[in-house]
């Protein structure tokens, strides 16, 4: 607490005091926020290079190619080889690799081989569906995970605590497609909820005919089409719930442990000693402090959320980037897979960066570590 407290006036580098390591004339001192952000951004480049190289090599090592996947059941090997050569797939790997890196460096992610779609177009057309799915799932995860974690932490080792912990483990461990299938069979039909897609075909057509953001939910809202908005929201219920349940297990366990720790801390004891009612102690002292580590975990969950989105999208026929990724993997479409994996990686990296910065702002100890 002392460290944290003393840093408060200096955390952003705007404080008057100079630290021992700070050199005279240096614009960014060790532990300053800009330096921290620059270091984090600098790490992105080697990280992305390693990732791009891995994706490139793994796809080439994996059996199959885009031409054989598409027309291998129809054409003889000679014709297939001719078509592969025409596409440049028979050139030396090193030539293809450097060409690929050069393209990416210019933010040119290319055009898919199997259906001639620019990657940027795929991200534009399908990214919105993934975005609303993950945000919806995340909100559900928070809405379920935090109250349950709090409830479990307040009643340690009670039946309620055990039941909630069990629930958290099951939702975290159960395969997402299995939960999705159960939802479709036992929740969708009794409640009359749709089992697939982001909206009914007519709704989708109506809203997409006047796109503004290419995010269906937002476009329906901007168009003031409440019926379409309702239809889209209803279609979000099961997929968001399925993906949200996966993530909520993590939040349950995290919040529970933090609540337990803070309830045993000195300042909570001090609050109790001052005669503050237990309910207020929990809500205003223990609970708020227990939520700080959740911010860190949010960043860590971004990758898990996107990974889960791929499976959820396939289970619910969701027209997002995950469905597209699986399609291009099956088609052995190098360009499609490389482009989408790179996009996913950039998103995860940016979220991690944002979370790191927020963490550094909230807790100055982070930038000194």
């Amino acid at each position, binding site marked *: 607490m002392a460290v944290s407290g003393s840093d408060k006036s200096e955390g952003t580098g705007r404080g008057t005091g100079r630290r021992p390591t700070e050199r005279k004339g240096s614009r960014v001192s060790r532990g300053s926020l800009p330096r921290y952000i620059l270091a984090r951004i600098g790490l992105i480049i080697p990280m992305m290079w390693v990732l791009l190289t891995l994706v490139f090599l793994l796809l080439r090592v994996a*059996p*199959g*190619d885009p*031409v*054989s*996947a*598409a*027309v*291998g*059941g*129809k*054409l*003889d*090997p000679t*014709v297939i080889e001719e*078509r*592969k050569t*025409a596409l440049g797939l028979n050139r030396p790997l090193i030539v293809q690799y450097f060409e690929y890196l050069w393209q990416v460096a210019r933010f040119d992610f290319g055009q898919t081989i*199997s*259906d*001639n*779609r620019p990657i940027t177009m*795929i991200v534009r*057309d399908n990214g919105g569906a993934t975005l609303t799915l993950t945000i919806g799932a995340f909100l559900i995860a928070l809405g379920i995970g935090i109250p349950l974690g709090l409830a479990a932490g307040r009643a340690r080792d009670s039946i309620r605590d055990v039941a909630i912990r069990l629930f958290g483990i099951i939702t975290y461990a159960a395969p997402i497609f299995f939960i999705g*299938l159960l939802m*479709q069979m036992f929740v*969708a*039909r009794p409640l*009359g*909820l*749709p*089992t*697939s*897609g982001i909206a*009914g*075909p*007519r*709704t*989708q*057509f*109506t*809203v*997409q*005919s006047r796109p503004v953001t290419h995010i269906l939910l937002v476009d329906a809202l901007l168009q003031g*089409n*409440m*019926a*379409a*908005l*309702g*239809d889209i*929201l*209803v279609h979000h219920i099961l997929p968001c719930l399925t993906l949200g349940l996966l993530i909520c297990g993590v939040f349950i366990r995290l919040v529970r442990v933090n609540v337990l720790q803070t309830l045993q801390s000195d300042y909570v004891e001090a609050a109790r000693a001052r005669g503050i009612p237990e309910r207020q102690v929990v809500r205003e002292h223990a609970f708020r402090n227990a939520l700080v580590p959740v911010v860190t975990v949010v960043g860590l969950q971004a990758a898990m959320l996107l990974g889960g989105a791929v499976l959820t999208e396939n289970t*619910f*026929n969701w*027209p997002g980037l995950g*469905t*597209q990724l699986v*399609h291009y993997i099956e088609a*052995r479409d190098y360009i499609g897979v490389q482009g989408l994996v790179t996009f996913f990686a950039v998103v995860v990296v940016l979220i991690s960066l944002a979370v790191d910065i927020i963490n550094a702002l909230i807790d100055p100890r982070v930038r000194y570590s």
Partner: protein
Amino acid sequence: MKNTSRAARAAAGVALAVALAGCSGTAPSASNSDSAGASSGGDYILGTTDTVTALDPAGAYDIGSWNLQYAMFQQLVVIPANGATEAPDAASACTYGDAKTVTCTLNAGLKFSNGHDLTSSDVKFSFERNLKIAAPNGASVLLGSLDTIDTPDATTVVFHLKQADLTFIKVLTTAAASIVDEEVYPADKLLDDSQVVGSGPLMLESYTAGDQAVFKANPNYTGDRKAQASQVFVKYYKDSSPLRQAVENNEVDVAWRDLTPTDYADLTSKGALDVIQGNGSSFRYWVWQFGTDVGKQKAIRQAAAYLIDREAIAKDAYDGTVTPSYSIVPAGFAGQKDSFKDAYGAAPDAAKAKQVLADAGIQTPVKITIGYTPTHYGPNAVDEANLLSEQLKASGLFDPKTESAEWTQYQTLYKQKAYDLFMLGWYPDFLDADNYLTPFLVDGGFFKNGYSNSKVNELVKQEQGETDTAKRDARIGELQDITAADVPLIPSWNGKNVAVSSKSMSGVKDTLDPTYIFRLWAISKKG
């Protein structure tokens, strides 16, 4: 007070969500729940697991793309539902001058949906463009026999072929022969999916790859394929499981290609939906690899042909949704004959299998590796492979083992001789017996299994150029007999064309024929 106001806000939020959900109707039926779009009585939603490679006819060689192209484009001639011969579409007729010349006469007053005139120049442009682009996933290979095209006037097109080819008019019925607007389509590259324009009965309103396509009736279309619904939605599904959920939940009106045989049997027993079966022409077969010690021995190939129990495979692996096949050419095609039934009998015969192996001095049990791919041809392919393996093993003459690989790897493995016997499937490009002979028998077929028979090559050439129907049928019959004797492959079954439909649909049954063309324009919703 604070708690009360929070609770009130939460309640208001929930109420808003419920109200919005209420606006949508929340009914499982998409047609009911989609109050956002205006709906006319005949509109309908088709759900399918097919994928679409390209909407430009020069860019695709798959059923999913072709079915959209059949709706958006005209061909010179078409195969009507359950018809055997070509019917007029853009052309009033296409006829052979000799076996190397085909002349087509266009109907007068043809227009593309953008109002441009459709002339012989567009036809010439379309074919030449397809061959020039030769897209990696395209079907330009089907136009391989085309040499030059003449257009003596605005309504006459003369195709000159490199060699005698009586299947060329059949090729003209395929989506590869779709006519595009030369004022819109680039001559040397594919047109973007969002910009495609044609002269067919339906025109594209919107298309989101892998998600949905929306069509409306083309007001400029004047042919016989008039659209029965003013708007048609095609919804794409990743696999059969969500498609089944959707059709049961009335989110789509028709599910076509592909639910599993188990789904068809289950939905039939429930009775809430119509499970409609039409004649099919898909073909499942087992190819011998002549490059292995086992596959190169004719006696072993013949012994296996004696032992396969097609009836059991159709019944146990596919719930009776397929028909046992005793020839490389499916029933219903001119010249077809059940050569394998004639040579090896309808039922398995272990005694004869044993005899043929003994006569050749082959020691038993013969170790054999059977290859299959577990998902590309649907989940029941595993059952089929295991059943065949059991049948061979039960005879005591074979010691089989099965191996599987996913489609992309499978193609490499069977070419690398990893299997003695491997499973493949086929959908015809056009309805002619030749489409089951040339791709499989000439110089090892497209799968290059090492089989080569000069007599077969000669007979194929002859049947392709034979104008006398009786003689052609005889040659096709002879080719099937040679196939049964040499056994480069073993026919297994022919598929049916099956759709699951709500009871309010009309036109579905009529379109389920061996062409596998789902005539989107001919379907509508009653009431």
